[in-house]
């Protein structure tokens, strides 16, 4: 979008009146249109609906395809050599910019699709391909695009997806595949490299042809968790062990039912013994009765009755004779066999991918050493303006001409920059500018005096000073008055040193913006430099050391932390040996951001003692979380529409819900989930406060619940105040693993086992027992006793 200033407008209309091109006779307009390229035609079509219709009618239609090079470009391709780029406009969120974060761009995927639809309409093009560049698009941006792809009814199937290197970026592939709901005809991945962590991908759609290209160390874990019909590997360094793993995976039923072909070109050497380890027959049978046939010792012919060449028969006979030696264990050395299959992948008629990559990459080299160059310029400018000032006649002359040169206020530069500017001055200039280089050597003060100065520094100032040198750090450490304190990391940019509820200090993690990304990519990726999570953790370690603090909590704010940054932080947490267990995680509202929780939990490898979520709100999509770490207590607060899917896929010991709008149906779903073995074995407690009404019939539906007599059934338990006591009676539900869930309704809690049960409790129990089938079952009309008005619900599991 171009905003014309009045000057620009008058420049454009230099010759006075506009040229009313749309009023030309059709023949003339067609001639004019021949000089417009598709970009100009597209821009013109955007001026009005009428223009669009006119332009559409005069465009010479010919077959063309559209490629969306996510996030910022749409390519209109007529052939492999003739294509036109359309840039997707992007907007920055100024509010977020003000907060110190890169802007997020809610409009951008919509704009991509808008342009695609406009181009389809204008040029009669067919959508061909999504070209993803993991380096250029944030995971949030990817998720939003995938969401739009799912919603786009004009695209029932995706013709092609291409994706650049995913080294150390497999979460990108995971987010793409686990959220995509449409089948893909052709999926090409360049450099599907293995990285430090194994990520399994659970996707529901199907890939027809999977192409993997130019890969040095194939990510076999990701590969074997994909579902496809045919896989083609070109220039992929795949070892016999990996082929064996692929076959074993297939044998175990992975890749889905539709797998037809695995083809790998450029395999240099294969060791059949390794490939066939544990498969050891000439035909490898899968669990579904299917057969995988390896095209070695075989002959391919056009017709069934074509004669088999003698060499092939001889080769087969030799192999048959030595079969045990080839694949068995009864010989000393391995039997090496080289193959070079001749199956060729069909050449893609459009080859713009390389070009797109080159186009994306051409911006990479920017402004090296710009800072020092800038300083030199500032110094030169200063000297220039100084000379100007000294030459009165020049000034008067320039004033007379109206060209007053504004002085460069060097004294207003930041101190560090000023000091560096001063380094360019000669000693006389330095002297003339006063106290530039005379520091107050605070570290040289006597200890008593230094201690007193240090008393005036707050922890932030002490920390900044400790960073100046190792020696300063030791000195500062020795004068800090130590007292118990906790550290809270609120990524991406804040660490809190907390002495008490009322006394805490914030430490800002320095943010390094990548100017290139800031100016070019439409998104928030990456918001910070590659060093950013390291900086966070380094700061934590420094603060721990300096103030003898304990690490207490991670405070995540999904709105301020990109998924990539979250992933990198989680990776850091996993690797940090000084943190064997995570004391507390808190997380702000996760409405429509269940992926944040998913990325966090599915990648975390350490147990969490307490996990507090404010506003665990349901999003548009159901997201199941498969996590291996264990949560001690999960606390959910202030939630209007509880995300039950996410909740029931977590593993925890205790759950506490405060001010969560939870209905009897949802409690029933929680109990059903527990009954079928979710939540893990360690679940002990579910507690919900601020429940207004419980409908027992709904809550106990399908659970085969039993009412217990408070006079006879007594269990050792922990009472609400934390003291040991007895639970008498209650409603029991039995789980598949033989465990029992006890709902603390129609029950009595006592301190001692022999405490008498109050008469009203017994009466309530007896009445409920009489009507139990009408309360918990579906016999007859529900009775009043099926409705419980209470403020809280307690369920224990043992």
């Amino acid at each position, binding site marked *: 979008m171009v905003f014309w200033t009045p000057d620009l407008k008058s420049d454009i209309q230099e010759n006075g009146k506009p040229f009313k091109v749309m009023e030309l006779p059709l023949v003339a307009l067609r001639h004019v249109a021949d000089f417009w390229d598709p970009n100009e035609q597209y821009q013109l079509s955007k001026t009005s609906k009428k223009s669009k219709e006119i332009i559409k009618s005069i465009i010479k239609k010919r077959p063309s395809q559209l490629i969306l090079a996510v996030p910022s470009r749409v390519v209109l391709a007529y052939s492999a050599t003739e294509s036109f780029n359309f840039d997707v406009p992007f907007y920055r969120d100024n509010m977020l910019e003000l907060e110190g974060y890169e802007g997020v761009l809610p409009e951008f995927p919509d704009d991509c699709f808008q342009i695609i639809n406009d181009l389809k309409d204008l040029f009669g093009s067919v959508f061909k391909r999504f070209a993803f560049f993991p380096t250029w698009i944030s995971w949030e941006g990817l998720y939003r695009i995938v969401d739009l792809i799912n919603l786009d009814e004009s695209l029932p199937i995706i013709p092609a997806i291409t994706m650049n290197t995913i080294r150390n970026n497999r979460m990108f592939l995971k987010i793409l595949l686990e959220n995509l709901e449409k089948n893909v005809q052709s999926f090409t991945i360049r450099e599907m490299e293995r990285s430090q962590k194994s990520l399994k991908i659970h996707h529901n759609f199907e890939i027809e042809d999977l192409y993997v290209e130019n890969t040095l160390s194939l990510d076999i874990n990701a590969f074997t968790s994909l579902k496809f019909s045919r896989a083609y590997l070109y220039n992929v360094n795949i070892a016999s062990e990996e082929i064996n793993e692929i076959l074993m995976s297939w044998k175990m039923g992975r890749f889905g039912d539709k797998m037809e072909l695995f083809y790998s070109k450029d395999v240099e050497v294969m060791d059949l013994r390794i490939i066939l380890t544990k498969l050891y027959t000439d035909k490898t049978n899968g669990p579904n009765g299917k057969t995988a046939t390896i095209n070695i010792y075989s002959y391919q012919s056009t017709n069934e009755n074509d004669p088999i060449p003698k060499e092939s028969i001889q080769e087969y006979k030799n192999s048959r004779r030595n079969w045990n030696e080839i694949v068995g264990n009864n010989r000393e050395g391995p039997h090496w066999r080289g193959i070079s299959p001749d199956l060729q992948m069909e050449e893609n008629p459009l080859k713009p991918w390389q070009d797109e990559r080159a186009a994306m990459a051409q911006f990479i080299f920017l402004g090296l050493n710009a800072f020092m160059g800038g300083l030199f310029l500032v110094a030169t400018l200063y000297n220039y303006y100084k000379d100007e000032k000294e030459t009165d006649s020049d000034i008067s002359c320039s004033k007379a001409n109206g060209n007053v040169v504004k002085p460069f206020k060097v004294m207003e530069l930041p*101190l560090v920059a000023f000091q560096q500017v001063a380094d360019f001055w000669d000693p006389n200039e330095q002297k003339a500018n006063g106290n530039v280089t005379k520091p107050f*050597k*605070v570290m040289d003060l006597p200890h008593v005096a230094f201690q007193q*100065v*240090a008393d*005036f520094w707050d922890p932030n100032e002490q920390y900044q000073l400790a960073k100046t*040198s190792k020696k300063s750090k030791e000195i500062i450490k020795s004068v800090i008055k130590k007292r118990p304190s906790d550290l809270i990391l609120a990524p991406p940019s804040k660490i809190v040193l907390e002495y008490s509820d009322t006394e805490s200090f914030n430490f800002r993690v320095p943010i390094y913006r990548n100017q290139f990304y800031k100016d070019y990519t439409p998104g928030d990726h990456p918001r910070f430099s590659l060093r950013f999570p390291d900086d966070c953790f380094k700061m934590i370690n420094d603060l721990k050391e300096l103030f003898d603090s304990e690490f207490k909590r991670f405070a995540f704010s999904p709105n301020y932390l990109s998924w990539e940054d979250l992933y990198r932080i989680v990776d850091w947490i996993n690797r940090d040996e000084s943190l064997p267990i995570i004391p507390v995680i808190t997380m702000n509202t996760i409405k429509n951001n269940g992926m944040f929780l998913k990325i966090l939990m599915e990648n975390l490898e350490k147990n969490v003692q307490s996990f507090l979520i404010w506003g665990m709100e349901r999003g548009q999509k159901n997201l199941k979380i498969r996590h291996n770490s264990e949560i001690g207590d999960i606390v959910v607060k202030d939630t209007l529409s509880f995300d039950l899917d996410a909740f029931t896929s977590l593993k925890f010991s205790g759950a506490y819900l405060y001010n969560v709008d939870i209905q009897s149906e949802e409690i029933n779903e929680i109990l059903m989930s527990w009954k079928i073995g979710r939540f893990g074995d360690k679940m002990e407690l579910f507690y919900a406060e601020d429940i207004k009404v419980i409908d027992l019939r709904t809550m106990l539906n399908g659970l085969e619940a039993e009412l217990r007599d408070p006079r006879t059934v007594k269990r050792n338990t922990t009472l609400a105040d934390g003291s040991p006591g007895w639970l008498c009676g209650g409603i029991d539900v039995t789980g598949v693993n033989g465990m029992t869930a006890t709902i603390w309704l129609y029950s009595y809690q006592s301190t001692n086992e022999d405490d008498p049960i109050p008469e009203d409790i017994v009466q309530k129990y007896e009445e409920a027992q009489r009507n139990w089938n009408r309360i918990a079952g579906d016999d007859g009309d529900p009775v009043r006793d099926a409705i419980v008005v209470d403020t809280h619900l307690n369920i224990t599991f043992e």
Partner: protein
Amino acid sequence: MSVEPEVPIVQVEEVRENPVLYKIISSDNHVFTISEHAVKLSKTLWDLITNLGLTAENALDNPIPVENVNGKNMETIVQFCERHKYDEEEPEYTNYIREFVLPEWDRQLLSIDNEELFQLILATNYLDIQKLMDYCCRVIGDMAKDKTPEELRIIYGIPTDAEDDALERSASDSPGPSG
């Protein structure tokens, strides 16, 4: 950048209102007269006066030599002590981070060159004047407000690790007193 402090000259009357006066000689032989209440702010000087047995009668005849403090600093110290001689004793601070309002008069008095301020602190430390020490330290502490480590390095003249290492190496390489 140095600002000339607008320190009011100590009024003679103010000094004279106290009948007991003491004379102090700085390292560069400047002589200062200071009242009894003012001199009591310096623990070192008052201990010395007590130990020497100086009285109202013989005080002016026995000037006290202070060889560690030059005339310029002594002038500042005398001005400060005369200004604050009747101040109430401040309670011991209990907070972990010290905070108090630095009076404008004292801020002006201490708006001096960093090198002078450093020497003044050394003198104050030697003379053990707690209040002046607090004020000086407050001024120095304030220099760190909202500064980055690089800025602090410049403000406080802190060598880098490399410079520290080089200094240490040269110290260990240099011949000792014997050699």
